[in-house]
């Protein structure tokens, strides 16, 4: 398995690229391709099915490509009002991610730069937050949201989403902020800048890669969130995408191509986001988890 073991001290070029790929790793390759098949098969199935109509779905081989391909399923889904759910998801996601990142950045900056007992307590609390299972708190959250008269509103989804995005975001951002050389802060201080100015003019631009990482990460979490919408909203008008998928599945159980078309549509924005920010997301995640 140890592909990287194939280091040759004399022939290998000095780049990392050449270092680990001298001899073929057949066993690893086999497992790699098997796993690829495992990953791809359900995705392939879901995508080709969306291009079939209901009749073809029942009669054709489920793994055969659609003959002829049709966009009917997508039409069905659009007529069923998926645009509305899509918009709800965008509102909730943007409305949660911006506060999460902004507030977490401020908190991380304070925790890294300051040294008061209060800040150390905050840090400990955020660490504790990593171990709180979201599901376990849903009943009191439901109670609070109803008491605030926010039940069945998009705002009800935003508030707890922010709370549960904060801990990990603070910790990732503070890891990055700690790597900013102290001298930079000192020189800005000598120039007479306040903490607030230093935070926004120096620290924020310097941590931009991490900001992108945590934005995508939180965006993914909120966009895909299921439990808060399930418990805290009720009206069909207020469904977000994952909940809409679930509801569709109940209502349209005879129209599987339409259900799967909704699945594909729900994934598209995330896919676009991932393609745009992939490098930063991956390097940010591995730096955050591997240190």
């Amino acid at each position, binding site marked *: *398995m140890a592909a990287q073991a194939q280091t040759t001290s004399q022939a290998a070029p000095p780049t990392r690229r050449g270092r*680990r790929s001298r001899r073929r790793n057949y066993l690893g390759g086999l*497992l790699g391709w098997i*796993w690829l098949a495992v990953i791809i098969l359900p995705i392939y199935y879901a995508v080709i099915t969306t291009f079939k109509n209901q009749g073809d779905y029942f009669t054709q081989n489920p793994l055969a490509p659609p003959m002829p391909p049709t966009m009917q399923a997508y039409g069905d889904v659009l007529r069923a009002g998926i645009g509305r759910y899509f918009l709800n998801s965008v509102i909730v996601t943007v409305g949660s991610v911006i506060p999460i990142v902004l*507030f977490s950045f401020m908190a991380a900056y304070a925790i890294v730069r300051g*040294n008061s007992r209060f800040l150390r307590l905050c*840090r400990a609390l955020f660490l504790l937050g990593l171990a709180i*299972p979201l599901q376990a708190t849903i009943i009191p959250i439901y109670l609070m949201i109803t008491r605030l008269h926010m039940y069945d509103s998009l705002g009800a989804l935003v508030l707890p989403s922010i709370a549960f995005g904060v801990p990990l975001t603070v910790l990732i951002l503070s890891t990055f902020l700690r790597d900013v050389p102290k001298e930079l802060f000192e020189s800005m201080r000598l120039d007479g800048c306040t903490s607030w100015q230093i935070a926004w003019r120096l620290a924020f631009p310097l941590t931009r890669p991490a900001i992108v990482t945590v934005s995508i990460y939180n965006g993914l979490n909120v966009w895909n969130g299921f439990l808060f919408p399930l418990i805290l909203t009720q009206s069909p008008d207020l469904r977000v995408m994952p909940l809409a998928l679930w509801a569709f599945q109940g209502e349209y159980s005879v129209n599987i191509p339409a259900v799967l078309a909704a699945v594909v549509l729900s994934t598209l924005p995330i896919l676009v986001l991932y393609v745009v920010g992939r490098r930063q997301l991956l390097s940010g995640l591995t730096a955050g988890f591997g240190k």
Partner: protein
Amino acid sequence: MAALASVAGAPDQTSESRRVGEAPLDLLVLPALIFFVAFALIPLVGVVALSFTSWDGISAITYAGTGSWTQVLNDPGTYHAIWLTFKIMIVSWLVQTPVSMLLGVFVAGHERYRAVLAVLYFLPLLLSSAAVAIAFKSLLDPNFGLSAGLHLPFLSQDWLGDPTLVFFVVIFVIAWQFVPFHTLLYQGGVRQIPASLYESAQIDGAGRVRQFFSITLPQLKYTIITSSTLILVGSLTYFDLIFVLTGGGPGNATRILALDMYLRGFKANQMGAASVIAVILVFVGLALALGIQRIGGRDRAASQLEGL
């Protein structure tokens, strides 16, 4: 977790807040703190309080002593849910760890095709659990899914309708969704192993398998701890996936703790009893997180969590 934080060490010594005429840094932490306390920490305390009530979710909340606790602890369904949750947790760990470790070691190589594979492996992480569950539900449909397409007798099963089979289906779908993430972790871990270790091992004549067990595996110790923590604690959160895939069925075959809580609270209107289950969930989660850190050695594990 509080203990972890104290090990993790204090931030650097510059105290900007002592400067004259400037708002203290402490204020900057407030917005994040307020949200966190209001919608994560207070609910955590609140759920303990609610477990001593007999609330139905609608009418007034009344104190009920340990009534809900006795009810839940005398219910064999509770133990079934706990047992099932642990079973899924442990089997998931046993399945996901070796697969993602081997895949991680493999894709850590730098050929282009491995990089492409690593990108494709990432796809399941982008999908919501609801989307994954719906796709698999239809793929596993006994009449129109995989079994109809491949005409292989062993595939023609009622995958989600058979109480024994469904357990393995759940394990498989969970692995499908989460192995990619752990592969990524291991890939990162492997890339940080110094190449010199392998060079000297090779001079000593160690083969590939030997190198894996003598160098790669020990060097990945902290990645293994991080990944295991996330798998074990994360397994408490498979709610969405199982809820959409099986709804807890057939019968109670996949009614894990989180699902049990939801059904008691929001379907059977027994919020008190559901809160008891929630408290059990919190305890299991905290015990796991702390337990694993202890096994893994505190200092190093703390700095790992810091990175999280």
